[in-house]
């Protein structure tokens, strides 16, 4: 979540669910919280019962809208325009929380002279490289307070890396996400103008940047009345400030856009201006959709990250540990200790084999040099570049956009291991995939060897999930898994054990990492299940005495400490599994610090130093949370202070201070290099220091702001299996959005297979307005076919007034189609797969796909069957001027003959 990471320093929700009940106004935008997080929604309802205003901003009228005070039906993909309008409203009417903004944000920082805003380049920032479709971020930098050399340990190395930062291979590799816990590194602290009047101060840059976002413009772009906008603005601003707070809630309604990270940035700017970050009832709450999706980025199985948001070493920049740590060495903020964290990680992985002499085994780590993300890998599979694939509790042929492309990828593997509870579609694609019917694949042509390895459920294994507010909760095993079912811990441990046995006599350097790594966990029971508790201890780390560390502050770079994920250090503090704590909530205050354990260091609300004024006193009695206790000489309050406990509010860093010592007593954003919340992000995002409204990649509307239609940095993966619908095409005239329903879970393996859930939403359907139904002759509860340049699918039609056409200022009407994506051919509740309709276009910051907006056509009746389906879709492509989508066997090379016929270009 670079959106939050670049703004505040950590890529996690700033507040926690229960804290929503302290809000005076809650804006739910880009989230259908009542449907997707019903139990978390109780805290919204609690706030409502206490008199808070609930605003739901969403293209669709959902179950969340039904209980909100106000529903704002903006056009899909226009959130930046709406939020930008609010920012302008706040700035123009002097409604920002001035004391907060001056003290805790980079509003006073000066931006370098080279920076040119989108205003002057018709939608592009300075530094755009049109050939590679990338930015060089150098011109976005602050005007430094001191020359940069003075604060880096290794100026030459840092400068060299700075240059390499611009290489496409480095940019593609998604270093930005390393801002997950620690803001992006900046060369030095900026020059400041505390009056905010300097024309190059961030504050003035911001004002100019958002000057265009007038209520009229918002109204036109979002398709809502100015009065609606004004109502939201009034509620939000009158419920922010010293006495009151507004909370913002989002989920994948924001992230799954080509400019998703910038959506979050826009909200971050607004919430920062309003002084709502780090304060009770405020914040930005990111709602995650899976039990441990936060955990899966904290302890990542992601190509670009090591545990704790340490970046994966890059071939061009990080050939040694010193190089790896060069950018952080000497920096202010907690990233200044990067070397401590990395060495501890290497000690955790390689144990005694990691020694100072061998760079603690740094060289054993594989290096990345480009985009190795999931979709790129699928394209590589189709080209036959990947031999084997593990799917561990994931069903990409249903849950990922462009199911057909995903199936082609799987069909070109040598082998595939699927670990799941049910026989999912990604395991049966060779047998039942829709491409069998169209003739594009057949078992005779698919050489993929498939192993289905049954998995254990959540009650059949010990372990921790990290939920949406960074809280780790331990699950105790209740029963043994049946038959061959095993935990994933079992599978990977024993796979590693077997591999190590096979190679135990190898002297090949490439095998040394495997052989030297620590791999000796206690085993339990007949199945010899590894001890998850021991793994958690390793993640927590140990000190020189072999005892668990209680804080990452104890980590050293001399090899005397270990720790598998530095941000999780403390989860085993005092030798106790803190994640397993279950002191009843009724016996604790609202913060309930003794239930589970939250990173970092059990702090439930991040940046909570900001709940007090620069002098350390609460901004107001009503919103007091953490404050400075002068008598005790420490920070105190209802939560663990997200600040050094004894650092005085009036502390000023001495010259030459580094890491946390370089942050002042009124720098609440402790992971940022300057200790401030970033209204302007001089680094950390690849698509601009400020959010800008672009239309989605597939849009039926022209960008009213600038000549640049869509984000200039969108990442595309081109091939006959991933054609893009042209913008503003008459052939694909309707906007489509995908989403979940309460009754189902993601790709459906955990819900379509269960009778009680299946019967509640038994069929795939799409939601359309009565107007669109009339326009296209669609019949309620009958079939319709949706077509894109990728494929055509059929669905039952639910005609509902909850979906509304948007009328633009020029009289054009934008029709929107809603499409839940849970279905496929397997399970009890079945239907075509919504994701087969979607293409893959990615946010360059995150490589997350734009699921939430695409275009399509819709016609009454069922779709053609068999090969006719291919011809049907191909005809659409021809009409839209899109290149042919015909493919050869298993999706490989396009068939030359029909390409000639199909592609006129």
């Amino acid at each position, binding site marked *: 979540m670079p959106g939050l990471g670049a703004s505040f320093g950590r890529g996690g929700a700033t507040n926690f669910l229960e804290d929503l009940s302290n809000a*005076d106004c809650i804006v739910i935008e880009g989230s259908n919280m*009542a*449907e997707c997080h*019903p*139990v978390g*929604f*109780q805290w919204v*309802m609690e706030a409502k*019962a*206490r*008199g808070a205003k609930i605003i*739901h901003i969403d293209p669709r*009228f959902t*179950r969340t*809208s*039904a*209980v*909100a*005070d*106000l*529903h704002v*039906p903006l056009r899909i993909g226009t959130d930046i325009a709406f939020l930008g309008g609010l920012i302008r409203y706040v700035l123009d009417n002097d409604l920002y929380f001035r004391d907060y903004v001056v003290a805790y944000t980079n509003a006073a920082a000066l931006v370098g002279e080279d920076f040119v805003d989108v205003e002057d380049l018709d939608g592009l920032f300075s530094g755009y490289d049109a050939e590679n479709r990338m930015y060089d971020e150098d011109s976005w930098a602050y005007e430094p307070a001191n020359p940069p050399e003075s604060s880096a340990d290794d100026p030459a190395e840092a400068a060299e890396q700075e240059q390499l930062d611009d290489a496409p291979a480095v940019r593609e590799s998604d270093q930005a996400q390393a801002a997950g816990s620690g803001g992006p590194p900046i060369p030095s602290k900026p020059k400041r103008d505390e009056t905010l009047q300097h024309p190059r101060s961030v504050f003035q840059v911001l004002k100019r940047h958002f000057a265009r976002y007038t209520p009229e413009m918002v109204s036109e772009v979002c398709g*809502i009345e100015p*009065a*609606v906008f004004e*109502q939201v603005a009034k509620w939000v601003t*009158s*419920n922010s*400030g010293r*006495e*009151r707070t507004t909370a913002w809630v989002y989920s994948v309604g924001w992230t799954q856009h080509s400019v998703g990270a910038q959506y979050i940035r826009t909200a971050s700017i607004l919430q920062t201006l309003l002084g709502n970050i780090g304060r009770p009832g405020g914040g930005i709450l990111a709602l995650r959709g899976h039990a441990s999706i936060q955990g899966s980025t904290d302890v990542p199985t992601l190509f670009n990250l090591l545990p704790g948001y340490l970046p994966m070493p890059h071939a061009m920049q990080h050939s040694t540990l010193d190089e790896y740590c060069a950018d952080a060495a000497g920096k202010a903020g907690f990233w200044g200790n990067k070397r401590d964290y990395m060495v501890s990680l290497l000690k955790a992985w390689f144990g005694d084999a990691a020694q100072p002499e061998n760079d603690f085994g740094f060289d054993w780590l594989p290096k990345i040099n480009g985009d190795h993300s999931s979709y790129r890998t699928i394209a590589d599979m189709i080209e036959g570049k990947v031999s084997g694939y593990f799917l561990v509790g994931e069903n990409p042929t249903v849950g990922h956009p462009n199911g057909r492309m995903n199936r082609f990828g799987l069909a070109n593997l040598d082998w595939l291991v699927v670990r799941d509870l049910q026989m999912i579609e990604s395991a049966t694609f060779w047998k039942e995939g829709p491409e069998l019917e169209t003739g594009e694949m057949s078992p005779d042509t698919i050489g993929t060897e498939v192993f289905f390895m049954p998995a254990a459920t959540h009650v059949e294994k010990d372990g921790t999930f990290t939920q949406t507010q960074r809280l780790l909760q331990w699950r105790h095993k209740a029963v043994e898994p049946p038959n061959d079912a095993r935990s994933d811990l079992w599978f990977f441990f024993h796979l590693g054990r077997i591999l190590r046995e096979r190679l135990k006599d190898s002297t090949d350097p490439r095998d040394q990492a495997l052989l030297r790594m620590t791999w000796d966990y206690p085993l339990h029971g007949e199945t010899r299940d590894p001890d998850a508790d021991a793994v958690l201890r390793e993640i927590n780390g140990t000190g020189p005495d072999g005892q668990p560390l209680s804080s990452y502050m104890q980590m050293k770079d001399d090899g005397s400490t270990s720790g598998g994920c530095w941000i999780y250090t403390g989860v085993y503090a005092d030798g106790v599994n803190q994640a397993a704590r279950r002191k009843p909530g009724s016996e604790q205050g609202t913060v309930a610090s003794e239930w589970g354990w939250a990173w970092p260091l059990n702090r439930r609300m991040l940046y909570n130093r900001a709940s007090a004024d620069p002098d350390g006193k609460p901004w107001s009695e*009503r919103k007091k949370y953490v404050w400075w206790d002068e008598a005790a000489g420490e920070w105190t309050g209802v939560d663990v202070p997200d600040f050094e406990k004894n650092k005085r509010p009036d502390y000023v860093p001495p010259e030459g201070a580094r890491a946390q010592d370089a942050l002042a007593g009124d720098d609440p954003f402790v992971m940022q290099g300057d200790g401030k919340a970033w209204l302007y992000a001089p680094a950390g995002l690849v698509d601009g220091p400020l959010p800008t409204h672009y239309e989605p990649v597939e849009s039926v509307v022209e960008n009213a702001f600038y000549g640049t239609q869509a984000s200039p940095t969108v990442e595309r993966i081109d091939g006959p299996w991933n054609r893009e619908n042209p913008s503003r095409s008459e052939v694909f005239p309707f906007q489509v959005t995908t989403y979940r329903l*309460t*009754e189902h879970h993601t790709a459906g393996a955990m819900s379509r297979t269960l*009778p*009680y859930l*299946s*019967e*509640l*939403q*038994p*069929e795939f*359907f799409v939601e359309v307005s*009565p*107007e669109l139904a009339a326009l296209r002759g669609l019949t*309620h*509860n009958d079939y319709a076919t949706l077509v894109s340049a990728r494929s055509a699918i059929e669905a*039952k039609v*639910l005609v*509902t*007034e*909850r979906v*509304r*056409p*948007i*009328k633009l200022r020029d009289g054009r*009407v934008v029709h929107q189609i809603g499409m839940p994506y849970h279905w496929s051919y397997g*399970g*009890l*509740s079945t239907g075509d797969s919504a994701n087969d309709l979607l293409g893959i276009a990615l946010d360059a910051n995150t490589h997350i796909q734009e699921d939430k907006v695409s275009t399509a056509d819709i016609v009454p009746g069922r779709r053609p069957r068999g090969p006719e389906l291919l011809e049907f879709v191909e005809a659409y492509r021809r009409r839209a001027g899109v290149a042919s989508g015909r493919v050869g066997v298993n999706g490989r090379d396009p068939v030359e003959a029909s390409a000639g016929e199909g592609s006129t270009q």
Partner: protein
Amino acid sequence: MTSISSASPGLAGNDPSNRLFGPLPDVSADAGYVEEHPARVGFFTDTSVCIGCKACEVACKEWNTLPMDDSHGVRDAMGMSGMSYDNTGMLGANSWRHVAFVEQTRTVDLPMPTFGRPGDDRQGSGPSPMTPGDGVSLADAQQSSVLNAEALSEFDPQTGQSGADKQIRWLMSSDVCKHCTHAGCLDVCPTGALFRTEFGTVVVQGDICNGCGYCVPACPYGVIDQRKDDGRVFKCTMCYDRLTDGLQPACATACPTQSIQFGDLDELQARADARLATLKGQGVETARLYGRDENDGVGGAGAFFLLLDEPEVYGLPPDPVVTTRDVPAMWKAAAQGAALIIGVAVSAVLGSRKR
């Protein structure tokens, strides 16, 4: 031994102790629990906070191990109903909780001088008593609508009419057996399979029911139904088994927003009255309690509701009356009819010439 005549309003015709109809202060005592018994328990379902998640439906089925609806696990038998997000359809033998989804729109032909919409009965008409006084002006409070305010959008895409104000709302309500004070199902059951528990609830005893089906049309709410493959009837038990273990019913336990509240009935009634007053104070004129009134046709319900529209909008009868209220009169008519037959037969015989 109690004499039958005094204890049997069914035949006696008069009902001085309200055993067939009207308020009954202690339903359990009426059913023989004369010694100490638990307080009468019930459900208060506040539909104004229902988010339609259907957790109640699933938690109920899970606890009571009910079969899937209709299809018995055959996937082809499942289908979308087209009734908004309601694919359960109605209460039945396999669905003891049913969440209704009602989508409503209406057009208000009024100009928009303010954000408030005059004439809208869902419009807030004053500062909410819950609203803290600081920082919110009276005008702001007046601008708040209590339910959603889709209405703020002036443009009606249908007519293109400006000034026409289309409002939408989506009502959701979890229906359940009402556990009536005077329960038709219980009273017509000829086997004693249906009985009243010590908690004042009405429960079917599966070891007794012989599937006569009489309770099915006797329920004025259409709650109880027969399971076709089993032959017996089933309905909500208010988790009688859980109650005996001191637990709440499964649905109330699960309900994320406390739309379903379980507890002692008198306590729930007080809570509901307060909630209604709050909503009325916020200008929700259409809010009303349903099944709360002990003077209604079933003597008040053990499971009652706060609704935001007329009961029939949710599929509930507006003024249900327990059928057995009239059973004395029916027996009287039947006796007269029987006497008439004897009279006619006797006179026919006597009046006929013998051969």
